[in-house]
């Protein structure tokens, strides 16, 4: 499952208001709430924070992939937020995170969830792609960068 299939411009936010992990997760979930993709906001936040408590999803290269499995969504659901300044998300390399990709999946959808996360893991290796995504000024631009990357013939 590709990121470009999961995202639309209303699921992308440029800039974040919070600088703590819970606040960032809340903002990512609120993008989904606004898009009417989440039935129970609190349940999604709790499930995500419980997952973060087991180990931070802050990866290297400024990417964080908070995620959860919850009955509060009915399908695999994704939101994206970008912070130019970078925020501490307990990343593996100790550096600030700039790109936050949030995924929530209902129970029984582990297959697509794993595929989507594996795709994000691969995209997260590409420094040029991450640089372009980090510099996107508008949701449309971010979506275009993702579309181009996922369609790029190699």
């Amino acid at each position: 499952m590709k990121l470009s299939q999961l995202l639309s411009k209303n699921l992308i936010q440029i800039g974040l208001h919070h600088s703590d992990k819970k606040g960032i997760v809340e903002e990512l979930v609120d993008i989904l709430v606004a898009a009417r993709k989440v039935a129970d906001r609190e349940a999604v936040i709790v499930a995500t924070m419980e997952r973060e408590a087991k180990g931070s999803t802050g990866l290297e290269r400024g990417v964080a992939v908070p995620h959860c499995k919850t009955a509060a969504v009915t399908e695999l659901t994704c939101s994206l937020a970008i912070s130019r300044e970078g925020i501490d998300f307990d990343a593996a390399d100790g550096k600030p995170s700039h790109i936050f990709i949030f995924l929530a999946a209902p129970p029984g959808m582990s297959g697509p969830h794993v595929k989507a996360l594996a795709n994000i893991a691969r995209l997260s290796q590409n420094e040029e792609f991450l640089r372009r995504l980090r510099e996107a000024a508008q949701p449309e631009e971010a979506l275009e960068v993702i579309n181009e990357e996922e369609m790029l013939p190699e």
Partner: protein
Amino acid sequence: MIRGNGYIIGVALFCSTGWTMTDGHGITTIMILVESSEKSVIAARYAVWLAKTMGARIIALYTVDTHALEELLRARIFVRMEGMDYERDLEEDAKRYLNLVKDLAEAKGVELTTVLEKGEVHSIVARKVSELGVDLLVMGEHAAPRSRRECYYDEGQRVLCEAQCPVLVVKGDERIRSLYNGIS
């Protein structure tokens, strides 16, 4: 050529003695690549129809993609306990779909053996095709790849590219339901 709602890579002919591959070896063993998707179930219905028509047996293979889980552990997106939890979920899902496909075959009196494996999907399929002497691999429709990179990473595409036997990709739905329901 086989007619129906699919396309086949490789060649099969129907002659007076039955369905035959171009190497003169009859189609006796069909493998269905089972996944957790409706398209995979549609492919299974078509495979049952083919097996009934050809007098072949079916092997239904589901591979739990533990390679992807390992990739997520390496990337630190998953913690170990979480990976194990997802692996259990995927295995349960695999069993559910294999049972569903088995019921579809048994309802039409077609012999079907289920095989559940774990690992890298395309590698397992290639190994099983060789080990089990599969004449025809049947799989559900996948979205067309949008890039060569996708051809490389999408397990369905890799199966299609790397299988060492003819591959039938099943398309359509209503026509296949009708074929399946028409089997006595």
